[in-house]
């Protein structure tokens, strides 16, 4: 389960040390924008040591490396891949070839480390107009791609428009990314809400992203994590309904019924699938829930 992803600057020890107590489902250790060019070497070594010695419990580890058109990305991978992070986030991915380039290099490092192929997954960061247009090809570019992530700030700079709280300027990109990701059967994550103090705005933005089909949302502040987790978690009513659906299906099967309804509505395959997803989320959140089937 990955609802929230929290960015942590890669060269800041006091934040790195506390990465797993801030409540997010994943932390993104950032070697890119949060680190100045003069400190790239320092951050790379610090993040590698953090991965080696700090046992981040209960959250996934994502490393945002530097873009493939810089001199840094290969060195970033050389330092972190031996520590088996869950995912690598290459930024400014604009086409399928960008994904292949990173994936091929990870494959070499995995082989060198004796890891199984595709141990480390990819979550490409889409933040250019070209990347948005090529989203479907990027999502399906490689077996390693497990999710995509929309970066609204760089994207609006590329689109030459102003980034607003309402987000009308990124509506097309949001829906295109969701559609591309879902078509390829992978998860998709929304851009951070950048006003750290506006918690109402954060809720609205996260709820809107959820309504479009996003799996979760990234955050640049620990203050936003709780809100994001809440919005992207199923409500108790949704959980109860999901169990009712599965129970209804179970009884119908026992009675040999082909078509069943619940609360006056026919239960068809998409409703069952959604109920399964809700119950999976419930298990991930609370654990120990018995199967209805």
């Amino acid at each position, binding site marked *: 389960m990955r609802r929230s992803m929290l960015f942590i600057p890669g060269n*800041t*020890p*006091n934040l790195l*040390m506390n990465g797993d107590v801030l409540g997010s489902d994943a932390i993104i250790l950032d070697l890119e924008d949060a680190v100045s060019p003069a400190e790239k*070497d*320092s951050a790379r*070594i*610090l993040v*590698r*040591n*953090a991965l*080696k*010695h*700090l046992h981040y419990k209960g959250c996934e580890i994502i490393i945002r490396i530097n873009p493939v058109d810089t001199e840094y990305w290969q060195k970033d991978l050389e330092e972190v891949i031996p520590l088996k992070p869950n995912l690598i986030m290459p930024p400014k991915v604009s086409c399928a070839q960008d994904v292949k380039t990173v994936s091929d290099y990870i494959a070499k490092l995995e082989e060198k480390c004796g890891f199984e192929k595709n141990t480390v997954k990819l979550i490409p960061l889409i933040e250019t107009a070209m990347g948005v247009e090529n989203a479907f090809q990027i999502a399906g570019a490689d077996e390693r791609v497990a999710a995509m992530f929309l970066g609204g700030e760089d994207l609006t700079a590329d689109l030459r428009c102003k980034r607003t709280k309402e987000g009308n300027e990124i509506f097309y990109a949001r829906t295109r990314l969701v559609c591309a990701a879902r078509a390829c059967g992978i998860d998709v994550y929304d851009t951070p809400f950048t006003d750290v103090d506006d918690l109402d705005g954060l809720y609205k933005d996260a709820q809107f992203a959820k309504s479009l089909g996003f799996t979760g949302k990234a955050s640049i502040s620990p203050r936003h994590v709780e809100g994001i987790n809440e919005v992207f978690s199923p409500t108790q009513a949704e959980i109860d309904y999901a169990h009712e659906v599965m129970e209804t299906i179970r009884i119908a099967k026992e009675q040999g019924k082909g078509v069943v309804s619940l609360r006056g509505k026919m239960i068809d395959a998409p409703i069952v699938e959604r109920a399964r997803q809700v119950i999976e989320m419930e298990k991930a959140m609370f654990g120990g829930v018995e199967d209805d089937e």
Partner: protein
Amino acid sequence: MKITANAVAGTLESSDVYVKVEPCDTLEIEIESVVYNQFADDIKASVKEVLDELGVESGRISINDKGAIDCVIQARVETAIKRAGGNK
């Protein structure tokens, strides 16, 4: 690795450490720390481990620790030494 130039790494922020390395004929490790009384020996051992791993036999290593944990101290020492050896 041989220390051939002056170099620094880290910061003076809380939980970090500022490391300065300089060429020197002998090996000297100077430690200043907010937790000197409790951890000076541990910090020195931690620094020495990195020097051994990188094959550094001489140089002046100055540590100004602001309560950094072991893996942070080692990261900053490694960075400073690599910078001082022209390996950035």
